[in-house]
């Protein structure tokens, strides 16, 4: 990675023991659009705001929530292009795992490998850390799982989490609303309400995106029409 002239790392320690570049990366994440995830008893839901820079942008061409495998999906907060690169790498790693072991990659393994990639970019020559935090939602033999991966490469398993602009309000809201035995549909409603909390303007199926995975273990992104249906149920 990096040009041969830059064999030294650009991410260096400060005297206080912090990696300043990673702190800055987290700031970039914190100024990105809000995204959140909730783990229900029978599935996981991830959601994000989809605020486009202008009304002239064709919103059907933008998809912020992506699938990594048939049973694992991911959403981000931060820099879109960095997310694209990570998604491509993760998909390849998942497929390589499948070729080697002939089983679908477990969610924890994929999260670990993605986190390893992100860590490599904090310790290699001539590269900068990724400016995204990921929320990975998956359903495998261990059941529904939700993981957050940070630019430093650290990852955590969450029952519910939020990232981006409105993170503190969103997390407080989720702490109040979360129950262990929530069903997937309830989780979707809670996710919508949480997004609504900090939403500027009129919320609709066109400016938020929701991805779900249930017992069928098939990750899919809801269509704008489906999102509108859920929105109506919430109101």
């Amino acid at each position, binding site marked *: 990675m990096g040009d*041969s002239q830059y*064999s030294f790392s650009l991410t260096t320690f400060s005297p206080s023991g912090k990696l300043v570049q990673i702190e800055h990366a987290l700031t970039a994440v914190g100024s990105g659009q809000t995204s959140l995830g909730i783990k229900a008893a029978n599935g996981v839901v991830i959601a994000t705001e989809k605020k486009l820079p202008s009304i002239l942008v064709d919103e059907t061409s933008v998809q912020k929530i992506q699938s*990594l*495998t048939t049973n694992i999906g991911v959403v981000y907060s931060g820099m879109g292009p960095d997310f694209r690169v990570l998604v*491509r790498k993760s*998909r*390849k790693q998942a497929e390589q795992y*499948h070729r080697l072991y002939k089983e679908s990659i477990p969610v924890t393994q994929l999260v670990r490998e993605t986190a390893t990639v992100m860590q490599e970019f904090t310790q290699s*020559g001539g590269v900068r850390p990724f400016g995204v935090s990921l929320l990975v939602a998956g359903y495998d033999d261990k059941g529904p799982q939700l993981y957050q991966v940070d630019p430093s490469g650290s990852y955590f398993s969450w029952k519910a989490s939020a990232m981006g602009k409105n993170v503190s309000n969103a997390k407080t809201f989720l702490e109040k609303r979360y129950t262990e035995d929530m069903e997937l549909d309830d989780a979707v409603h809670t996710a919508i309400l949480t997004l609504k909390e900090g939403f500027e303007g009129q919320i609709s199926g066109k400016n938020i995106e929701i991805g779900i995975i249930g017992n069928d273990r098939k990750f899919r992104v809801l269509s704008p029409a489906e999102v509108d249906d859920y929105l109506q149920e919430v109101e």
Partner: protein
Amino acid sequence: MSKAAIEVPPKGGFSFDLCRRNEMLVKKGLNAPSFLKTGTTIVGLVFQDGVILGADTRATEGPIVADKNCEKIHYIAPNIYCCGAGTAADTEAVTDMVSSQLTLHRHHTGRESRVVTALTLLKSHLFSYQGYVSAALVLGGVDFTGPHLHTIYPHGSTDTLPFATMGSGSLAAMAVFESKYREGLTRDEGVQLVAEAISSGIFNDLGSGSNVDICVLTKGHKEYLRNHLQPNPRTYISEKGYSFSKKTEVLLTKITPLRDSVHIIEGGDEMEE
């Protein structure tokens, strides 16, 4: 990140250095390893709603039947399947590899895979190995542009055909197709014809045998008929049963304890026979 001093061949083109080395070794008397040809009959035909693929199930190692019921119809994508003749390991590995590449491609594009994509990935791989990957394939599938059937040869050339056969039993199967194939077959007629062609290979070619596998691919639907026909049933247990002689009576039991210490005589007499 330091530049290692590795000799890299000029970019592009083939490097045939090892071929010269192989020739030199053969001249010096080395027995070059021979290829194991696995006889097979594999066929494919296009019918009115899609594609039907068929294969026998015998895998051979020279004159021995290594596997009486192997699977020669390989999965490439939900709408694309591939029959493989030649070295079994080569066909397995190559179809597995392309299947993996197509899964990744489907994730990136969000679309159903096309048969021509599988075709191009397979032929470029086989061409780059100059025929050393001994895989002869019949590739069939139904995608957005319609049903497709192709044959791929080990050196990387391809054909697009309405009906095709490959393998050591290909002549026997092709004889059946040439006489009975017509356009616009129904599903049942197609399956019947494919079964006949494979059976012809099974009975007239030594390298093919055992059962008939069939795969019917139509738009949005696939039917994998494993062991659709079993014209060579194998009975494992003799119907009469085996008769063993009565158990011998025990007359005497004698236990001789092991000796505690053994004296080793060096240079002693040899044991008498």
